[in-house]
């Protein structure tokens, strides 16, 4: 499956992409399996990290810095998302005394 890289003494792009895919899948599994909203949040961060790794690997592969700027912006958005999300979690916990997503059914139809 792994495509051999022509360049020697460098870890091939495919290895980084596989690791990125594995990290992203672990994040997806965390979102699917866990009921704790904090763990779900951490899994989302894990997915963002996996995507960042793929972007940096591509940046090296194509010799372009644009992807690194994009990673920088992704990190910014992740920080904002974590701040707002954790505030929501604090609000939710204050009202329901729980961090279980099964209790998060206020907007359920």
């Amino acid at each position, binding site marked *: 499956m792994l495509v051999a890289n022509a360049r020697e003494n460098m870890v091939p792009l495919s290895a980084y992409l596989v690791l990125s895919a594995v990290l992203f899948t672990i994040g997806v599994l965390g979102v699917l399996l866990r009921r704790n909203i904090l*763990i779900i949040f951490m899994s989302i961060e894990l997915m963002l*990290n996996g995507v960042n790794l793929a972007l940096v690997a591509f940046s090296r592969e194509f010799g372009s810095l644009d992807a690194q700027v994009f990673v*920088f912006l992704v990190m910014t958005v992740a920080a904002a998302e*974590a701040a707002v999300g954790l505030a929501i979690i604090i609000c939710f916990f204050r009202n329901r005394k729980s961090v279980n997503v099964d209790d998060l059914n206020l907007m359920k139809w």
Partner: protein
Amino acid sequence: MAIAATVCAILVISHRNPVASALFLIATMVSLAILFLALNAPFLAAVQIIVYAGAIMVLFLFVIMLLNLRRDEFGAERRKAQRFFGILFGFLFLILLATAIDVGLSALGRPEATTEKLVPAGVEKLAELLYTKYLFPFELASILLLVAIVGAIVMAKRKL
């Protein structure tokens, strides 16, 4: 480093205690930062350590401690069927991603032209790009951060 990142990531989602999960997530991020260094991106490695492992994870740990969870809330109940389907679809998703990578890489071919053109390691080029070509997204990101700060304070404060 890849193995360390994977093992820590698995531990993040499998550990019962959220504090331990957060610590393993920090370990994952540190190993990813080392991988960034190996990928000739030292600025991103530094940002990864400072912003992710520093700021975001401290925020996570702070919230976990603040919520002061009782012991019985750590191990939430899991449904057997959901667990089974979750793992099943997780592996299907991994297969999908692997196929996409395989197809994409074979379609890409081997770009020999980029062999000489290595990414410059310094931060100067990145800063130049950030302040010229990507100035507008950069400013948008700063506004987004401001809005996030205000939003977080509004939501987390008991009464304004």
